[in-house]
């Protein structure tokens, strides 16, 4: 099929970017979206032009490194699907596709479609862990955890840290990302000891990184490739309020 692409090109964080037009032929429906971009880059190299920079790595939907806005939607039209898992059979001959980076104040553009998501790492560093150092662990089965609790914790732990939630939110809020980590760790008995400190520190760090507030539009849940529930945001709020109320 033939496609008309409008792709965001921006040299670096301080330059002004713009949408640039490209046409591409011979796209097969079996190609992944990123393989289509590979093909375009191959053509640009033949023409001696600088390639379109985009982030990607595992290409199987788990590393969280890829992610662009496709026709205004994070990771494109399919639900629960990362950009790398989107295939061209979701498009048809003659389509025009708009491709832009995930946009947020806390995610500055590095070049073209590549962005800087260090803000997420910084939030995790502020409290997104159970502080068990190597060597301290008790026997694994000494902490029974019900099947349901383990599954619920897993649902939240499945977050891949791609940033689609932030890019989809009109406030560029990271509430789903932070809520998912708080939910994962706080549901588990091992994670309860640090729960109050974790909630306060992570919420504070989220604000410091320049993410907006949650106004409950729930766009994040719709676009999350792992289908993480907005209930984790409620859980974050609950843990945060509890921590504040009982703070000594």
């Amino acid at each position, binding site marked *: 099929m033939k496609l008309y692409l409008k792709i965001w090109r921006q040299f670096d964080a301080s330059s002004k970017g713009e949408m640039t037009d490209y046409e591409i032929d011979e796209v097969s429906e079996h190609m992944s979206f990123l393989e289509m971009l590979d093909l375009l880059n191959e053509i640009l190299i033949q023409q001696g032009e600088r390639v379109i920079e985009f982030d990607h790595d595992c*290409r199987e939907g788990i590393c969280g490194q890829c992610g662009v806005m496709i026709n205004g939607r994070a990771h494109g039209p399919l639900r629960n699907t990362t950009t790398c898992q989107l295939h061209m059979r979701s498009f048809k001959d003659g389509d025009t596709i708009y491709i832009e980076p995930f946009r947020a104040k806390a995610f500055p553009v590095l070049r073209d479609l590549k962005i800087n998501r260090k803000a997420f790492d910084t939030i995790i560093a502020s409290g997104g*862990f159970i502080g068990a150092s190597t060597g301290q662990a008790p026997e694994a089965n000494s*902490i029974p955890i019900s099947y349901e609790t383990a599954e619920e914790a897993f649902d939240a*732990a499945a977050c891949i840290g791609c940033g689609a939630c932030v890019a989809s939110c009109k406030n560029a809020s990271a509430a789903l990302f932070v809520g998912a980590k708080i939910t994962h760790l706080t549901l588990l008995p091992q994670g309860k000891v640090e729960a109050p400190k974790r909630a306060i520190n992570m919420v504070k760090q989220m604000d410091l990184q320049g993410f907006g507030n949650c106004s409950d539009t729930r766009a994040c849940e719709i676009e999350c490739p792992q289908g993480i529930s907005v209930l984790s945001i409620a859980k974050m709020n609950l843990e945060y309020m509890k921590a504040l109320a009982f703070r000594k």
Partner: protein
Amino acid sequence: MMESKIPEGPLSEKWNTYKAKAKLVNPANRKKLTIIVVGTGLAGASCAASLAEQGYNIKSFCFQDSPRRAHSVAAQGGVNAAKNYKNDGDSTFRMFYDTIKGGDFRSREANVYRLAECSAALIDHAVAQGVPFAREYAGYLNNRSFGGVQVSRTFYARGQTGQQLLLGAYQALERQAALGKVALCTRHEMLELVVIDGKAKGIIARNLETGKLERHVADAVVLASGGYGKVYYLSTLAMGCNSSAVWRAHKKGAFMAGVSWIQFHPTSLPQHGENQSKLTLMSESLRNDGRIWVPKRANDDRNANSIPEEERDYYLERRYPSFGNLAPRDISSRAAKERIDAGHGVGPMKNAIYLDFSDAIKAQGKDTIEAKYSNLFTMYEKITGINAYKEPMLISPSAHFTMGGLWVDYELMTTIPGLFALGEANFADHGANRLGANSLLQACVDGYFIAPYTIPNYLAGELNTTKFDIDHPAFEEAENAVRRQLDRFLHTNGTLSADYFHKKIGRLLYEKCGLSRSRKNLEEAIIEIRELKASFEKDLRITGDNTLNSELEKAGRIADYIELAELMCYDALQREESCGAHFREEYQTPDGEAVRNDEEFCYVSAWEWKGQNKEPELHKEPLVFEAVELAVRSYK
């Protein structure tokens, strides 16, 4: 130079003996020592976090935008541990034996025993970190079975075990970063090892955001940079996986061992076209319930569901009745290739086999199968558009894991003092074939439980040696070498992209140094690789400049892959036997089983770099078996 340093005493006491005698560094002195860790996968992140917890200063490097992206994240099926929670006869010795046998008796007894011995502690630690492993209804940890074993010792977190273990290690790493003990250098790529007075003392790294070359000095360097299966281009690996850190250390004097021992995963998705960049893995755990078959009649074009039962060949169950669909990976992959080559392949390109769940769905119900594998079935449908609850999956073998890597001694130190290699980057534990769910284990055990003892043992001797800084001529020289290479890539002005060369070397290796090898093919391959190298030097085209430039990054990785490919062929050519994943067509039984040659090849092949276009030099480390008897590895 190659001393394995295996401690004295009975097998089960060796590690305890080592730990009891290892030198320690006083807590006050630890903060005077810096360790560079390249890679933030399970091995790198766990090592960096554990050493930082002890009080050392860590500089952690990864080429991805965050440590959490490292390719350990993609491991699906699980992690093995000899907990014997199922009371089904498991023990440290049993796990050790399965791993040694699975590796076709081409690994060190002492290393493998230690791996099994430390496995239980890993599960304890991961649970303490909050890894949400699968549970039974009573709240205790659940297990499943994996290829090549007859007990249930695999712990799992749905089909995302690697992700969950990695998040545990990543969070531990970030915790130390917040405490100021780890400096995180993300989007940095190691491009040279700096060796001073024969010891590893630092690296040259390129900041991938700016293109700037940086000098980093340390008291020890750890490479935990993963495997090089991506040399085959089409593989289950991430696009950025590369051999560069390992290869550049090799060219600085570190030996490479078992280089051509590459595992082809039996259950990946088949190739469908020329522009494909990746062969996605479907977890081996699917083989617990899926049955593998091809049509009995060659070139049978009928739809899978319309081929009656009696016309299906369940070839693994037929050839290996006691292990059936859970035969080890090398054997399953080779059996698939045999059927495909004989004309029984299925799918549009006739390059696949069926993995069929219809019997399991009938016996257990769709809900049960969905609960076990829903994410894999969903992923399969996303990629292929096919619903595997209704028709069998199409799968085929794909390049996956490198058993080979940097040669290391019992302490995980390479032939360069002060340079350690952990996880898939080393050659140590898997012999000629790795068992499923042992790679996460090895990466974690290396990083959490071994390196935190062996690296301090080395550092204790470094406290009172001369300290170097980044103005030392060795740094100057290393940086200049890197800069010259980058300039050359940017100014070659040829016509062919880096990917062109990558695809070319990948195809060549699949054909001539892949699932099966022969003297004739390997000799041809070496000549062709040299031709490709000459072409790469004059025909490469890199657009853009020396700032942020993904094409320039690729060029360096592919230059290294081309050289590595040549060594892989030498390694495969020299080893005139079939063992594990290394199948030499000349050495097989009449019914196509591998023939190992313990008389002549019961050793580790470690290769020394001798310079461009020179033949590498072979060093042999004899493998001595005291606890097990060398046996023909049969799964029949």
